[in-house]
């Protein structure tokens, strides 16, 4: 049986004396233990609304959210807290608290009114702190920690809640790239090794494509579920995200901003300098052509790489002119300068 199941769920905002604003409807999704699901969609598609509805923070317009077979609308806040924990985008400033005290808040649903921790509670807290690799942070004041360290502790707090389902809203939003990759790897491990179901809303396309077992793609009031690769192949990704001026490259799995087709250039070479030269030229709006297209046409600038990988040299040939460049910055300036010359020549003719 699926841990989380939505049945004919419609989410949105009900306002008195007005018809409700439906953000998304006919949502039928399932999520099982050990699974990492990324919820993606363009801004304003309703990701947060869906997350809030699943978390029980917002009432569904219609339909049901079933958690381990129970409708969450029928669970008390405390019962819900034992099944579901959340890590939100907001970064609370908790004042004078050390890491352990912050993680210990996750035991809220299990302790008595005094909040006293039993030996078992303490064992769970130790485990949660170790599971996110934050033992060295646990006795430090939370206010001295960085965003990433704090985020780790917030995830540990969610783990300490011992819920089967963990919801995370943009958990990587404030982290640098290596820390994002680390966080996603951590979440994958947690899902797999503790058999928890993890649902995270993210804009991080690249990491989601690499890490998610399943992708929930939200756009136009519908949610499509599937393996990330299936959604790429079927074109669902383009449908969801692509609007004016943005294209999704199915081959590379990346979005790019459409530009006017620029001047053609040809690049010869290999290795890392070759890859980055191509990227730089694409960024500058040039269109990379295959060398076979040349056919003796000298009107297309040609770039040939030489030298070793650490200090490459670029040779630019165009119309009998040859320029040697020692950095990509120089190369770009030279190639763009050619454009002006060519333009002028054309004008003079």
């Amino acid at each position, binding site marked *: 049986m699926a841990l989380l199941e939505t049945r004919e769920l419609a989410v949105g905002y009900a306002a008195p004396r007005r018809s409700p604003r439906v953000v998304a409807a006919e949502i039928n999704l399932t999520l099982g233990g050990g699974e990492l699901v990324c919820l993606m969609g363009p801004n304003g598609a309703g990701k947060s609304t869906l997350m809030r509805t699943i978390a029980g923070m917002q009432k569904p317009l219609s339909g049901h959210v079933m958690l381990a077979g129970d409708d969450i609308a029928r669970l008390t806040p405390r019962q819900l807290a034992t099944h579901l924990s959340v890590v939100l985008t907001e970064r609370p400033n908790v004042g004078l608290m050390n890491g*352990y005290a912050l993680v210990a808040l996750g035991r809220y649903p299990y302790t008595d009114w005094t909040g006293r921790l039993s030996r078992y509670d303490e064992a769970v807290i130790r485990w949660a702190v170790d599971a996110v690799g934050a033992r060295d942070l646990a006795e430090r004041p939370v206010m001295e920690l960085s965003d990433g360290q704090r985020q780790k502790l917030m995830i540990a707090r969610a783990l300490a809640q011992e819920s089967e389902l963990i919801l995370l809203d943009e958990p990587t939003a404030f982290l640098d790239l290596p820390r994002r990759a680390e966080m996603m790897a951590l979440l994958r491990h947690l899902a797999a090794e503790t058999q928890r179901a993890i649902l995270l809303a993210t804009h991080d396309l690249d990491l989601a494509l690499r890490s998610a077992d399943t992708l929930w793609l939200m756009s136009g009031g519908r949610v499509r579920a599937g393996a990330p690769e299936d959604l790429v192949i079927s074109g669902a990704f383009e449908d969801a995200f692509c609007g004016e001026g943005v294209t999704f490259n199915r081959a590379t799995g990346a979005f790019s901003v459409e530009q006017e087709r620029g001047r053609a250039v040809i690049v010869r070479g290999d290795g890392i300098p070759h890859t980055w030269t191509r990227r730089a030229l694409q960024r500058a709006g040039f269109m990379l052509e295959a060398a076979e297209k040349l056919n003796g046409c000298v009107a297309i600038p040609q770039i040939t790489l030489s030298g070793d990988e650490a200090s490459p040299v670029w040779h630019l040939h165009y119309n009998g002119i040859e320029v040697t460049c020692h950095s990509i910055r120089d190369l770009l300036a030279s190639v763009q300068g050619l454009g002006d010359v060519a333009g002028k020549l054309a004008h003079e003719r």
Partner: protein
Amino acid sequence: MSQAVYRPIPRPSDYAADAALPRLNLGLRPALLAALLGGLVGVFLLSLALGSVRIPFDQVIIVLLGGEVERASWANIVLKVRLPKATTAALAGAALGVSGLLMQTFFRNPLADPSVLGINAGASLGVALVVLSAGTVGGALLAGFGLAGDLLLVGAAALGAGAAMLLALLVASRVQSRMTLLILGLMISYLVSAVVSLLLYFTIPERIQAYISWTFGTFGGVTWEQMPILAGSVLVGLVIALGTAKSLNALLLGEGYARSLGVNLRALRVAIISATAVLAGAVTAFCGPISFIGIAAPHLCRSLLGTSDHRMLVPGTVFMGGILALAAALIAEVPGHNLILPLNAVTAIIGAPVVIAVILRRRNLQQSFGV
């Protein structure tokens, strides 16, 4: 990239609930709490010994234990004047400190104090109506300012505070947003102050004097007969506050997180507002609008105890508030003289520099609040 992530993640079963392990270090320091309690007892005894007449410490202790002292007047002074006054001050300080703490955590605002709910304003209006507009009936009673006049003032203040409290509760149970509640409380305060101003404008100077002297605040107006009412209200408020301590900790994470941890926000909101209203309402009714302690005690307490855990802060502010109130009352008496300064002036004149000194020395007051 850290290698730590790729280490296998431990399983909960690897962590036995082993009694041999040291308890988790949550950064709590109960010893400091005990020291605060010691300080409260010390200031309490000091305020029994000092005053216009200085009574030796050992004699104070003998009086308290019911023994015979050198001079019979000492027993009278201690038991009939200073003991009720010190008890009132300790209760009022505790009540104001805790209600200030509740408001600061609830509104996540370091400037919040019990007056933000408009309870002070409500009590002021009640008193102002009685003192300023009592034309025929009340005027005769107030003319002599006897016991009946005092009781009338207490009654009027309690009614006003109660009305404001009911309004706050009504709003709190309907309105979701804390910000709305905060702004509403402020608006009610402004409105009420304006009405009081109008009343002052149209009243004769003698009555204004009576009103102004109520706004100075005093701990000396509570008799032993009235004490059970004050003590009972404060006790009820403190018990509710202590009961919410665990949920207040969860509330530090914000309402979204608190709800996800299983906090019943609506019940918590009603509990916090009722506790604050009972605490601040009772104190304002009996002692007048005492400012400053409600704002200062929680900040000093967080800074000294070095924690935001409300299971420490609630008892901490009880002691700290008591210490502040007793110290202010002691200074207002100007030991050795017959002069008595207005209490509200003393709390701020002495208190503000103390708080400033603590802020400058410890530099963690703002961080400790976490804004």
